[in-house]
Every structure is written in structure tokens, then in C-alpha cells.
């Protein structure tokens, strides 16, 4: 098993653009969470999805949205990009909604110019 996979690995966008990041969880895992990690800080929770429904949301504006597909993969969408959205975006999967152990992907590094 390759573990959690994310694409793309790197991305450069300009202010005002839109971006879509993708995540495939570990086989058999039904829960996907998204985190934003700004340089010098720990990851910050954005969303959790379980069984294709949003189950939790962190303190992020409505420009951030996500969805989960029937195969449990997930997309994170960010509209109207700001310079401050530049960060490493991490996806984590767990077996269940209350899965205590979350397994992280390698992340997508987004640079907004």
C-alpha cells in the first residue's frame, strides 16, 4: 500500500485564481481530513469528511471547500487565492470518523504569487 497520496506535489498560482488539490486515502479508510501548514507552524485543521459528508470544519473562510467521492478520495478547493494561502496542504486518512490515528500524505506545496 502506497499510503495516502496527494497530487500535485507542487503548485504555483497567482492571486485571485482557483486551485484544486487531490487526495487518495489508504485503502479501506473512509475518513479524510485536510490540514494547512504555514511555514514555521504546525498543521491547522481545515476539514474532515466521512462517508462523503462534511463532519467538521476549522476556522477557515468559505473560500475553502472540499468534497469526498464514493471511492473515499477527496478534493480541496480554494477560491480567490490570497498570498496568505501559500502553505503546505496535508491530507490525512483514518479508518473511521472517530479514528484515533490519522495517517498523513506527503502534502501539496502551494505558492501564491
Amino acid at each position, binding site marked *: 500500500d502506497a499510503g495516502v497520496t496527494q497530487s500535485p506535489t507542487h503548485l504555483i498560482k497567482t492571486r485571485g485564481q482557483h486551485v484544486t488539490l487531490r487526495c487518495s486515502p489508504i485503502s479501506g479508510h473512509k*475518513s479524510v*481530513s485536510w490540514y494547512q501548514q504555514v511555514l514555521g507552524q504546525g498543521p491547522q485543521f481545515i476539514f*474532515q469528511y466521512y462517508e462523503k459528508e462534511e*463532519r*467538521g470544519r476549522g476556522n477557515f473562510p468559505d473560500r475553502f471547500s472540499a468534497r469526498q467521492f464514493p471511492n473515499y478520495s477527496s478534493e480541496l478547493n480554494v477560491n480567490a487565492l490570497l498570498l496568505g494561502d501559500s502553505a503546505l496542504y496535508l491530507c490525512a486518512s483514518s479508518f473511521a470518523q*472517530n*479514528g484515533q490515528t490519522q*495517517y*498523513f500524505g506527503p502534502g501539496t506545496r502551494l505558492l501564491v504569487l
Partner: protein
Amino acid sequence: AQRVTQPEKLLSVFKGAPVELKCNYSYSGSPELFWYVQYSRQRLQLLLRHISRESIKGFTADLNKGETSFHLKKPFAQEEDSAMYYCALSATTSGSARQLTFGSGTQLTVLP
């Protein structure tokens, strides 16, 4: 709201010396705490969790509810322990999501 504090951004020790990475938390409920580690050019990975009371790679961590701490310790540091360490608290949100709250991390360097 929950909060995790790691007071040391950088920590350097010599090989063979004991190491302690500090973590303090604030949370009104019953905490579930974790240590994650990120080695150079690798993904974030779970090191240990308090409910397991296990020792991984010689590291242990004890939850002290009185002091609201979950410090990570190793009696004899090795050069391969050099990495970024994150303390994290798991809490259930109002929507029943399982949310990890991370500290800002401690970069450990073990000197030869």
C-alpha cells in the same frame, strides 16, 4: 477551545545524552495526545500516542493531567533522532469530527 504549546522551537543535544521535548496542552475534556515526527524529506508520521503507553524507537511520553503536559523523552539520543517533532491533541468537534490540534513543533538536532 483546545491549545497545544511546544515552548522550544529548536533543541540540540549530543549523541548519548538524554532528551526531553516539552508539550503542554489546554483542553476542557479528556485529552487524547500524540507525538508526530517528520524526518527530513519525509511525511509526517505517528511516533506514539498516550493511550498505548508504548515505547517507540526508545521514546516514551507520559500524560500528566495535573500539569497538563505530555513531554517526550528518550534516555540516550541518537543522530537518527534528528527531526521535527509535533505534539498533537485529538478532540471531537461539534459535528463529531476528529480534529487534531498541533503545536508549532520542536526541531531536534542530535550532535555527534
